[in-house]
């Protein structure tokens, strides 16, 4: 051992600390809070997607879980209890159930076939949400979903509905939780089992890893987490509409963020989201109102060329 290079995870922790601290210290523009709130949400979606990917399956259909989460929360808010716990549970559960069903039905599919089947599986909830007009209001979408509630902690009242700073910290907490789960999927006994399944299913089975059960659990967990994010999205934006919450964009984004950030690092997907989303929204849009997407594409192409293992691996 010569010198300790600064490990990339230490840098990541520093970034997280700065992110947690700066809204307290500076006269912050609300805008940056808002953009980072959304970046945290996408980071969690990206990590949820990566859970499935870590088991060796590439999903092109996470928009299904996101949309189901959003619709579950919105419908619960509209017809049942508007309590946040109830709506988010409804969102996460509906997505989780669909995820569990998909995981069970598609258990024998691998590779490109699995990717295509998940792509097609988005259509089922989407078309139903679009056409079951008496319940979901069809293409009109559901509007007027209640914002996040006001929470009283003793004498302090935190209004998550209007204060962007409060939303920022709430989502930061979610990011911590998501990162913890994602970290466990890499650096734990369970994570090693997942890696074994990914690298060689038969060998893993011989070693006593319950391959099917493990895959099923991880896919369901991934769907639950994505659904939770969908539910939060519905509350943050106040409306849901099939083309918005089931958009193909939502299936592609976690994949791009994860691969850019580094799929095999516990902080990789989060890093991708925290770099790419704010860069696009805060820098590229204002500078180039019409050409930002081309630069965004160039950034993606460049980082794949120069960081083939993801941004998280610039120091080994």
């Amino acid at each position, binding site marked *: 051992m010569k010198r300790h290079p600064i490990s990339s995870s230490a840098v990541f922790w520093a970034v997280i600390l700065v992110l947690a601290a700066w809204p307290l210290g500076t006269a912050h*523009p609300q805008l940056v809070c808002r953009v980072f709130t959304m970046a945290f949400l996408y980071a969690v979606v990206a990590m949820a997607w990566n859970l499935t990917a870590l088991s060796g399956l590439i999903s092109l259909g996470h928009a299904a879980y996101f949309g189901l989460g959003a619709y579950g929360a919105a419908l619960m808010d509209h017809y049942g209890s508007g309590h946040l716990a109830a709506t988010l549970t409804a969102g996460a559960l509906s997505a989780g159930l669909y995820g569990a069903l998909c995981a069970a039905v598609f258990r024998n599919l691998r590779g490109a076939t699995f990717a295509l089947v998940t792509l097609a599986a988005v259509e089922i909830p989407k078309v139903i949400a679009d*056409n079951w007009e008496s319940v979901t209001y069809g293409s009109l979408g559901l*509007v007027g979903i209640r914002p996040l509630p006001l929470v009283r902690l003793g004498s302090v009242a935190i209004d998550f509905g209007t204060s962007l700073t409060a939303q920022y910290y709430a989502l930061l907490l979610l990011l911590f939780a998501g990162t913890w789960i994602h970290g466990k999927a890499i650096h734990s006994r369970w994570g090693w089992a997942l890696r074994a399944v990914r690298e060689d299913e038969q060998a893993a089975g011989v070693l006593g890893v319950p391959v099917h059960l493990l895959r099923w659990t991880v896919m369901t967990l991934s769907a639950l987490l994505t659904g939770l994010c969908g539910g939060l999205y519905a509350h943050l*934006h106040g409306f849901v509409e099939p083309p*918005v919450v089931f958009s193909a964009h939502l299936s592609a984004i976690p994949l791009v963020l994860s691969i850019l950030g580094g799929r095999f690092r516990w902080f990789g997907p989060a890093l991708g989201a925290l770099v790419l989303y704010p860069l696009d*929204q805060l820098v590229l*849009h*204002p500078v180039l109102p*019409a050409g930002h*997407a081309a630069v965004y594409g160039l950034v993606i192409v460049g980082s794949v060329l120069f960081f083939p293992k993801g941004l998280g691996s610039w120091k080994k």
Partner: protein
Amino acid sequence: MPFARLFLRFVFTWILLAGLAHAGHAAAPVRLGAINPLTGKLANHGQEIQSGIEQAVDEINQAGGLAGRPVQLLSRDDQSQPETAVNQAQDLIYREKVTALTGGYVDSLVGPISQLALKAQIPYVASASLQKDLTLGGKNPFFFRISHLDGVTEPLCRFLPKVMPGKKAAILHAATPGATEFSQVLFQCLRRAGVELPLVEKFRPGTPDFAPFLLKMRSLHAEVLISAGFFPDHLILVRQIREQNIPLAAYVGPWGIAYPEFIQQMGPAAENLLGMSAWHPDFPYPGTEEASRRFSEAFRAKYGRDPTSTVMHGYTAAKVLLEAMRTVVERGAPLDGPHIADALRAADVTLPLGRVQFDAKGDPLHYRQVVVQIQNGRLVPIYPADRAQGTWIPMTGPTN
């Protein structure tokens, strides 16, 4: 490295001087924000609205600005995604500190921006928005729009039963909130007027093939097709109708038909289609011929193409907003959200698009579109009677 230091010092001084010079300028510009879909599927309409807004800003700056203060336009792209629209609106409001917002093409993008405008107390005049719920029943005093759904459905509801009595109609609409609400309202009022509607269907924008729907229409003997899709959907649908020789008396497209670009792309296949238009260089709102002509000339000189109804929507939204801001400045009141919103509520101007006056909810009081038909490659208004320049011609039936 003294040279590098010298260079840095020079740059620093220059920036400082430039900043001072900037601050010392006689009148700080008034900042106006515009958010439109400049890229993606809706980019053509977004860019049209954008150019209309630019035209309005140019006009006011050439006339000396708002009591001597120039107007600076800051434009952003919303990529047709609500979330980007919100982020960019936030950027304009909090970082760029704009005084007011305008633009916007689809309801799902206009809605979230209007909520933000309410929160930040910044007036927002939307250029194209239809849905009825969007005004929140008047609970948002900072949101105004120059178009609404009734202005499209009402003329159509009177026109169809009157001009084509006894004909069966079919409605095909895109799976978007605006088009869905349009088809629901139209269905109700046509049904009340006694029109038989055997077929109402919805499709996802981007569907490449309408052949099965057309076959069904033929077997149900529906002779009028109301197609609430967008520009590209008409391109495919009309071509397939012509190919299959569907016996149609009328094809009505509320959006996307009444554009010179559509006629140019479709060629003879566009002949005798019906569309809706709020304005056109050839048939401005009565009494605004001179203003229309001046606008069209300036627009052609700058952009090298003919202005469309969508351009006019962008222009009108920005124009109304800027006029309201001018009255606030001239009155000597502070140029802030509440004062501009009051001025907008009191506004009553006649522009090429029509008379613009807002009701308590921020909806336009006088917005009415005209039914137009493509005749010999030109757009001819045919309804209502006071603006008509021609009469309805049935579509050519099957020739073989």
